[in-house]
C-alpha cells in the first residue's frame, strides 16, 4: 500500500520495466527494421488510439468514427512543431556502451549495448510536440463534441464524426495553402524520426494506467452509467453531457498523442493515410477485443497488427493481394461466431476491477458474515 505511483504498486512498475527490457533487448534485435516498426511499435500506437475509442464507444456508448480525424490532427500538429525546432534544441548526452559477454549473446543478440545515448533536448521537444498534438486534438474535440453531443446521439453522432474525419482529410490535403511545410496531398517529409519503442511503450503504459484509474473511479462509474441507460443516469443526478464530452475529449487526446507518435515513427505523413475508410480500423479493433474491455483492446490490437502485417510474409508468393480478402472473411466469421469479441467482458491482470473494501457500518447493522467478508477483502487489498 505504501509506495504507489498512479495507483499501482512498485511490483507492477517493476514488471513493466522488465517487459520493456525484454522486448527492447531480447525480442526487438531479432526482428528486421520493418517488423520492429509494424509488429512492435505501431501496435503500441494503435493501442493508444483504440483505448481512446474504447473510452468513447466501449465505456461511454457514443458511436464515434472521428477518432481517425483527431489522430490526423495530432500527427500533423506535432510534426510541424518538431519540423521547425528539431535543429535548434539539441542537447546530446553521452551514454555508456557496454560490451556484452559471449555467454549473454545467446539471449541478447548484440555485440554491444548502447545505453542512454539520447538527446535530451530533442526528447523534451518530442514530448512537448506529442502533448501539443494531443492538446490540439482535445481542444478541437471539446468544441466539436460539446456542440454535436448536445444535439445528436447514436447513429447520427457516428455520421457527424464520420463527416468530421472526411473534413479533416480534405483540410489536410489543402493544408499547403496555409502551411506550406505540410506539402498538401503530396505528403509531409522531413519530419525527424524520433519515435522509439521506449516512447511508444511508455505512453501506452501511462495511457493504460490512467484509463484504468478513470474507469474504476466514480467518474468511470458515471461514464459507464451513461452507456447503460442515459435516462436513468440523468435521473440519478449525473450530468450526462458533461461525462459524454469528457470521455470524448480524453479519447481524442489519446488519438492526438498517438498521432504524434505515428508522425515521428515513419517520418512521413500523407493525407491519404487519414482517409475515412481507415477510420473503421480502430472501431473494428475494439469490437474485436470486446467493447468496454481494456485487456481485449490491447490484445486485439497486437493480434490485428501482427496478423495483418504478417500476412505479407506468411502468404505464399503471388498471393499477397489476398491479405485484404482473408481479413474481411475473418472479421465476418468472428462477428458470426463471437459477437462479444475476443475476451468479452473478462479483464485480466491489473486491469481487473479492484475489490473495494466494504464500508464498515458498525457491528449492529452488519450481519456477521458480511462483516467478515469486508474484513477479509480489506486485508486482501492491503
Amino acid at each position, binding site marked *: 500500500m505504501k509506495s504507489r505511483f498512479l495507483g499501482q504498486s512498485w511490483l507492477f512498475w517493476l514488471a513493466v520495466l522488465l517487459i520493456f527490457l525484454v522486448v527492447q533487448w531480447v525480442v526487438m534485435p531479432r526482428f528486421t527494421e520493418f517488423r520492429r516498426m509494424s509488429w512492435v511499435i505501431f501496435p503500441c500506437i494503435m493501442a493508444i488510439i483504440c483505448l481512446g475509442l474504447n473510452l468513447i464507444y466501449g465505456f461511454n456508448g457514443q*458511436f464515434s468514427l472521428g477518432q481517425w480525424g483527431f489522430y490526423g490532427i495530432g500527427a500533423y500538429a506535432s510534426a510541424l512543431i518538431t519540423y521547425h525546432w528539431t535543429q535548434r534544441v539539441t542537447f546530446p548526452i553521452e551514454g555508456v556502451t557496454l560490451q556484452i559477454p559471449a555467454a549473454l549473446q545467446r539471449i541478447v543478440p548484440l555485440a554491444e549495448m548502447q545505453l542512454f545515448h539520447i538527446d535530451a533536448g530533442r526528447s523534451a521537444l518530442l514530448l512537448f510536440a506529442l502533448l501539443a498534438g494531443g492538446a490540439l486534438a482535445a481542444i478541437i474535440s471539446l468544441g466539436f463534441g460539446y*456542440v*454535436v453531443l448536445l*444535439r*445528436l446521439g447514436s*447513429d*447520427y453522432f*457516428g*455520421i*457527424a464524426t464520420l*463527416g*468530421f474525419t*472526411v*473534413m479533416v482529410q*480534405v*483540410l489536410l*490535403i*489543402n493544408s499547403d495553402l496555409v502551411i506550406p511545410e505540410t506539402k498538401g496531398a503530396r505528403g509531409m517529409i522531413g519530419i525527424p524520426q524520433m519515435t522509439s519503442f521506449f516512447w511508444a511503450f511508455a505512453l501506452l503504459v501511462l495511457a493504460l494506467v490512467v484509463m484504468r484509474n478513470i474507469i474504476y473511479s466514480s467518474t468511470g462509474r458515471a461514464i459507464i452509467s451513461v452507456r447503460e441507460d442515459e435516462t436513468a443516469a440523468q435521473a440519478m443526478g449525473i450530468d450526462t453531457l458533461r461525462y459524454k464530452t469528457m470521455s470524448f475529449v480524453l479519447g481524442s487526446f489519446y488519438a492526438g498523442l498517438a498521432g504524434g507518435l505515428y508522425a515521428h515513427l515513419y517520418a512521413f505523413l500523407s493525407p491519404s493515410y487519414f482517409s*475515412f*475508410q481507415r477510420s*473503421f480500423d480502430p*472501431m*473494428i479493433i475494439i*469490437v474485436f477485443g470486446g*467493447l468496454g474491455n481494456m485487456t481485449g483492446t490491447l490484445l486485439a490490437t497486437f493480434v490485428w497488427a501482427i496478423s495483418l502485417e504478417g500476412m505479407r510474409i506468411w502468404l505464399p508468393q503471388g498471393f499477397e*493481394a*489476398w*491479405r*485484404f*480478402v482473408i*481479413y*474481411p*472473411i475473418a*472479421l*465476418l466469421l468472428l*462477428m*458470426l461466431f463471437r*459477437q462479444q469479441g475476443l475476451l468479452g467482458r473478462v479483464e485480466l491482470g491489473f486491469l481487473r476491477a479492484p475489490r473495494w473494501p466494504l464500508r464498515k457500518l458498525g457491528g449492529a447493522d452488519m450481519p456477521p458474515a458480511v462483516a467478515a467478508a469486508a474484513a477479509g477483502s480489506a486485508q486482501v487489498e492491503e
Partner: protein
Amino acid sequence: MQNLTQRMVAFMRRNWYALIVAALILIWLYGRMRTNPVLFAQFVVDGIRLGFVYGLIALGYTMVYGIVRLINFAHGDVFMVGAYTAFYATTRFRWGFIPAMGLAMGVCAFLAVIIERVAYKPLREAPRIAALITAIGVSFFLEYFTALDFVFTPNFINYTPLPIRFQTWDVGGVTFSNVMLIVIGVSLLCLAVLWYLVYRTKLGKAMRAVAWDKPTARLMGIDVDLVITFTFAVGAALAGLGGMLYVILYPQIRTFLGVMPGLKAFIAAVFGGIGSLPGAFIGSLIIGMIETLSQGYLSSTLRDFIVFSVLIIVLLFKPTGLFGESAKEKA
C-alpha cells in the same frame, strides 16, 4: 405532403436564423447567377444529373436503414459491381443498353440477397455494432476481392465503347446530353415504380409494416425475413442501375469506384432524413447541387469539406434530417 409542408413551416418559425442564413446563401447565388447566367444554369443542370445518380444509391441506404436500422456500408460496393456488370455486358458481350441495365440490376439484387443471407441475417438479434462491423467487412471483401487480378483487376478501366452514343444539344449556351436525359428519365421511372411498390402493393404494405414494428408484423403473418431480403434486393437493384448510369456519365471504372459515391449517397440519405423515400431523393438532389455549385464557385478541392459541413450543420438544426421527423412513417 400537406403534413410535410406544415412541418417545414413550423420548423422555419422555430429556427428563423437558419432561414436568414439560407436567404443569404440564396442571395449570394443569385448574384453569381446575374454575373454569368449560362454558367450557373450549366452548374444546376450538372447538379441535377449528379443528384439523380446519388438518389438511386441513396434509396437503397434509406430503405435498408428504415427496415433493419443498419448502415449498409457494403451498398457502395454493390453499386461498383453493377457498374462492372454493365461494362462487361456492353463491351464484351455486345449487349444493348436495356438488357445490360436489366443484367446489372439482376446481378446486384442477387448479390445483395446472398450478402443479406450470409452476413446480416444471422446477426439480426445481435447488437447492432456486430452487423455494422460485418457490413464494413463485406465492403472490404467486395473491394479487395474484385481487385484481384483474375476478377476485375485493380487498375482503372476506361469505358470506351459506351452503350449509347453521346449526343449533346446546346440550348442557349447550356449543354444537355442525351445521357443526362436518360439518367433523369430512368431515375424518375424507377422512383415511380418504387413508389407504386411501397405504397400500392401488398408487398409494400408488408415492408412498411416490418419497418414499423417487426414482432407485430410477424404476428400478423408477414414473412419478415422474406420482406427484409426483398428490401435489400430492391435497394441493390437500384444501386446497380445507378452504377451503370454513373460509369456512363464518368466513364472510368475501378473497384474502389463505389466508395465516394456510396458515402455521398449515404450522406444524402441522412440529409433528407434516413428512412424516408422522398427525403432520400430530395437530399440527393440537394447534395448533388451543393457539390457542383461549390466545385464551380468556391473550390474543387474543398468540395467535400463544404458538403460535410453542410451536413453537420443541418444535422445540428434538424437531428433527424430534413424529412425524417416522424419516426413511424418509414418505408
